[in-house]
């Protein structure tokens, strides 16, 4: 793949477009993408993840769609009761809500560009707007609280290779509703491909959404997700990101706190090994008074791995009594491991409580020695310390069965090191 990767406008003819307006919108976005190409490190938001370079290195050519699919059997989670949604290569395949009142839930597949997010700064969003042909719309009625969590099985098939997939999801929670989602990514492909997704989350008054993002396996996929949230008054968003596993993964979350007394939490525990590259980027916009936001990002980087956290808290002049906190801690296990962090505060109000911090370092030798004097090998001691480091995040998951499941998944990753 050469430096100026471009996509022919004729590709859009392969998508079942709704109407001329939809087509024009796609063509316009494709033009914007073709002008910029994939983002490079010259762009501040991509400073530590030069995706143009990364893609150039890993892909010679890219095919925009994948029509025929070969789905292998899936290991569904049995450890706890749940509703499920199955997405295959970004396309909604089926769903089942056996614990719920189905009249309160709207779910459909869509590829309507009316649902697009706009961000002229980000060429991957332009690309997504131009080529997205699959998606999920999930809407929860006012006053409905889910009995059980939904697991969204995001399955990527065995036959994916050098594909560039674009997908859009939208989740809307009505007033006073509550939903827990576990986004469980299962990648069956042994090959490289790119999955570019945008997610739009709308939380109405007093709604509560909890999401957990988890990978089933180590893989060679390249993932980018842009998540845009809008929060009305008294709504609560709580996100846990355990997304280590793919070769490249960037989760880019931007939340607008539009109503008073919102609470927006993003926590992450990552174990980045081999030559994997993972970035979490958050932008929390405090637009009204009396909201809280909290981001705590813990990353363990081993071998040639690279971790990045870019976090920005923006506080508008009228957003008095904002309480915002951001912390990134990284543990480097090898001399070749790398972690970059860029915390930022942009505050225009004068009566706020905002703080941020960032630390990175290696495992404490004295702690290793202490554990070894109790009979543990060095490897066991480091694993225990790494587990302990990440447990601070995992321990915050209230459901015992879900927490145990995640602990297990993460432990397998750590013990593989």
């Amino acid at each position: 793949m050469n430096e100026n990767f471009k996509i022919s406008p004729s590709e859009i003819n392969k998508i079942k477009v709704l109407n001329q307006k939809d087509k024009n919108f796609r063509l316009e976005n494709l033009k914007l993408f073709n002008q910029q190409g994939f983002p490079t490190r010259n762009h501040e938001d991509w400073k530590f993840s030069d995706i143009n370079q990364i893609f150039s290195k890993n892909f010679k050519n890219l095919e925009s769609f994948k029509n025929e699919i070969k789905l292998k059997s899936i290991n569904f989670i049995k450890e706890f009761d749940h509703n499920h949604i199955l997405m295959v290569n970004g396309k909604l395949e089926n769903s089942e809500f056996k614990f719920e009142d189905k009249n309160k839930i709207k779910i459909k597949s869509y590829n309507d560009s009316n649902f697009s997010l706009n961000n002229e700064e980000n060429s991957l969003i332009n690309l997504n707007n131009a080529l997205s042909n699959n998606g999920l719309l999930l809407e929860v009625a006012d006053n409905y609280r889910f009995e059980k969590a939904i697991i969204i099985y995001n399955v990527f098939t065995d036959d994916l290779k050098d594909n560039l997939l674009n997908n859009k999801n939208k989740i809307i929670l009505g007033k006073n509703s509550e939903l827990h989602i576990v986004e469980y990514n299962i990648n069956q492909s042994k090959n490289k491909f790119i999955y570019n997704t945008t997610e739009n989350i709308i939380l109405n008054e007093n709604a509560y959404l909890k999401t957990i993002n988890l990978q089933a396996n180590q893989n060679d996929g390249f993932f980018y997700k842009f998540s845009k949230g809008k929060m009305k008054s008294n709504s609560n968003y709580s996100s846990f990101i355990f997304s280590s596993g793919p070769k490249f993964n960037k989760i880019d979350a931007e939340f607008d706190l539009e109503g008073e007394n919102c609470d927006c939490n993003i926590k992450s525990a990552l174990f980045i090994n081999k030559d994997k590259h993972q970035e979490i980027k958050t932008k929390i916009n405090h637009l009204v008074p009396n909201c809280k936001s909290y981001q705590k990002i813990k990353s363990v980087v081993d071998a040639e791995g690279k971790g990045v956290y870019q976090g920005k808290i923006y506080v508008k002049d009228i957003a008095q009594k904002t309480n915002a906190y951001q912390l990134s801690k990284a543990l480097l296990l090898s001399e070749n491991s790398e972690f970059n962090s860029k915390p930022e505060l942009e505050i225009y109000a004068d009566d706020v409580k905002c703080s941020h911090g960032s630390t990175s370092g290696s495992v404490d030798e004295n702690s290793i020695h202490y554990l070894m004097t109790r009979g543990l090998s060095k490897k066991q001691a480091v694993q225990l310390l790494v587990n302990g480091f990440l447990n601070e995040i995992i321990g915050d998951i209230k459901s015992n069965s879900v927490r145990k499941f995640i602990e297990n998944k993460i432990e397998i990753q750590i013990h593989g090191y």
Partner: protein
Amino acid sequence: MLVIKNLKASINNREILKGLNLKINPGEVHAIMGPNGSGKSTLANVLSGKNGYKISGEVKYLGESLNDIPVEERAQKGIFLAFQYPLEIPGVNTNNFLKTSLNTIKKAKGEKEIDTITFLELVKEKAKELGIDEKILSRQLNVGFSGGEKKKNEILQMKILDPNLIILDETDSGLDIDALKIISDGVNSSRSEKKSFLVITHYQRLLEYIKPDHVHVLSDGKIIKSGTSELALELEKKGYKKLN
């Protein structure tokens, strides 16, 4: 149990232990006293196998040279160091850690691993003896523990792991009289013909509670005087300077 011959240890090109000789027989309690900087903690570290020291001389434990034995194997063979400053290990549950530690040692000895229920009963019993609030054992290892709780937790580990040679590095520092008494009782009740203790302390106070068979004075990296518990009393009266 332990024979140390002409032990020298240096760190960053600075010699700390300068030819130390010591012999501890099974069942004996030895106290090492000495002023700050005399090499007390270095001796504890070196016996535990801590990295970073350049070492010469010989240390034999149960007839076997320890020179090339790594830290964890020393622990598995029954050497236990109670730390002067036990480390805080965030995110690691105290009980889980204790169980992992005990089972690792049992496995190394070729013994059967202990199941969770039996383990919890054992911990409960030992914790009660030491007046440890069981609640702290479900907390993160040493995190937010008071000074006394940390030291009691060291003794609890000693009781559970059941080692042969126990090195207590300034276990009395930072303890009030009540805690000191509980910890000393914990140590005294573990004394047996098979176990030996090396009690490292700055003050004679601890030795009122844990009666040593032998007392040694460590000064500038060497043992300059050895005697019975009378020696500790003499030191308390005269101070270390008079001995030099």
